């Protein structure tokens, strides 16, 4: 037990003395996951609108397929991206395997179905009267969609954050297509996995605390904004 406590103290020291490697890994992780979340949101939100606001055959099936992808193993996406970007693969010519760029692409593939599906749910959660009201006041299709999306802003933000949470916490994909290259593609999760297997529990734990704190901050800030804005509204 005391060994564990010692490890914890060492971990805190590593964090607060500003160990360059720890902070470099943390910054890279954040950069990769934030980029992936940004691009995934850019793709997912318009697609979710297209799905939600149109009636077409197989809509229910499409949503079910999206929901199946919520639980897709990260290693499976890793394998797929690896095959596509490996030298012999269709996009092998780009030569970006084992770079942060391909990790972003992989994470976008991983979290887009999740974000799309949850955004569709978010839009469905808006009362149909809002849509009718927008249309009855003269909104065109695009304006109506924007209005409904604004009404669903908190639920949509949650969808984006859950996507971010999945991106920052996954390890299988990052190792397979990033390769855990020190100073280049190493992230908090891949580093933890490596350091733990090498017996560097203190370092692993420091990385784990940072990972948890990042996740916590990213989840807390929006709900704080939401609470604040609803307080303002009540005035």
């Amino acid at each position, binding site marked *: 037990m005391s060994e564990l406590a010692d490890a914890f103290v060492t971990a805190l020291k590593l964090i607060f003395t500003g160990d360059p490697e720890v902070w470099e890994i943390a910054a890279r992780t954040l950069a990769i996951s934030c980029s992936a979340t940004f691009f995934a949101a850019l793709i997912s939100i318009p697609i979710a609108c297209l799905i939600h606001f149109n009636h077409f055959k197989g809509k229910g099936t499409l949503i079910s397929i999206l929901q199946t992808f919520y639980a897709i193993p990260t290693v499976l996406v890793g394998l797929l991206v690896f095959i596509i970007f490996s030298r012999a693969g269709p996009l092998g010519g780009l030569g970006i395997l084992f770079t942060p760029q391909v990790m972003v692409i992989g994470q976008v593939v991983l979290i887009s179905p999740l974000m799309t599906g949850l955004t569709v749910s978010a839009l469905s959660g808006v*009362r149909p*009267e*809002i849509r*009718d*009201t*927008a*249309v*009855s*006041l*003269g*909104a*065109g*299709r695009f*304006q109506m969609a924007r*209005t409904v999306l*604004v*009404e669903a802003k908190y639920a949509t933000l949650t969808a984006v954050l859950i996507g971010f949470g999945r991106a920052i916490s996954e390890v299988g994909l990052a190792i397979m297509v990033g390769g855990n290259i020190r100073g280049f593609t190493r992230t908090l999760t891949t580093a933890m996995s490596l350091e733990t297997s090498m017996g560097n529990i203190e370092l692993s734990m420091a990385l784990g605390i940072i990972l948890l704190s990042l996740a916590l901050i990213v989840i807390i800030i929006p709900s704080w904004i939401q609470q604040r804005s609803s307080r303002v*509204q*009540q005035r």
Partner: protein
Amino acid sequence: MLLEVNELCQRFGNSDILKDINLEVERGETFVIVGPTGSGKSTLLRLIGLLDKPASGTIRFGGREVPDSERARLELRRRIAIVFQRPAVFNTTVYDNVAYGLRIRSEKGASLRNKVARALETVGLSGYEKRNAQTLSGGETQRVALARAMVFEPELLLLDEPTANLDPLSISNVERLISQIIRDLDTTIIMSTHDMFQGQRLADRIGVMISGEMLQTGDPREIFSRPQSRSLAEFVGIENILRGVIASNEDGIVTIDTDGIPLEAISNLDPGSEVYACIRPEEVILAPAKDLTSARNTFPGEVSHIVLFGPLARVEIDCGFPLVALITKKSAEEMGLQTGSRTYAYFKATGVHIIER
């Protein structure tokens, strides 16, 4: 003619919600569709507001048939505004809610601010600009919805049961507001309500809709006193409806045989015509003894039930057929009427409205 509706039908699944609706509304007119809940009023307003497409039939707006293409419909739709029965407000300030229609129409700056301010003043919500619209009461929400709809000065304003979910005080406020809009704006208004009296108070013309059919359109007073069908008679509150056959016609005074009981009424129908005789409860006079009066119909009977409401008493009399009379509570007290009392019921031949079966 601003609006012409021809043979309009709407179906959901296997049920006909609207059956061959024909309707014409003049520019500047206030037309009120009156009908019970579920009669298809909202469905009709959604079609007129171009929110839905009909199963068949045509709508002409401003003399031009409503086109099929979404772009052209949008252009027409921007000249119409709808206020729904349960208005939804956007989760933002009152100001932004009211400004919505103007912003959609690319209005900005001082002109937008002035129009919003004027609309809020009209509905009595000046000073509410920064409040979140979702924190308002039902009556206030309804007023925001009205301001939001009239702010862009639509040519046609559709109001779907604007007072259906409000308390009595809010109802009279919203009604007063609608009268004011009718007076101040020269907008054409089509409004639906289940309240016949509200229709009478606000309308230039009324259309009564029951079970998806527009049964009668016309002057409110005429519909009220001379309904053209039995269901309409029931809807406008005529409680005494007797089935009968015209037995004779002497110079316009007919005798109607209702299950062996003769009634006299004014009609030009020939003997043998099958009719309903409708007598408004307020046309029935009660007296303790048989007097000689000018009333052509006199029936002895026994009071079977009395209900008091406000200054009035609703008296049910068994005269061999059930007859309902509406008299003042004071009269009922002075005559000592109670269940089991003997009384005479009188009504004039002109108090009987005849509907052909």
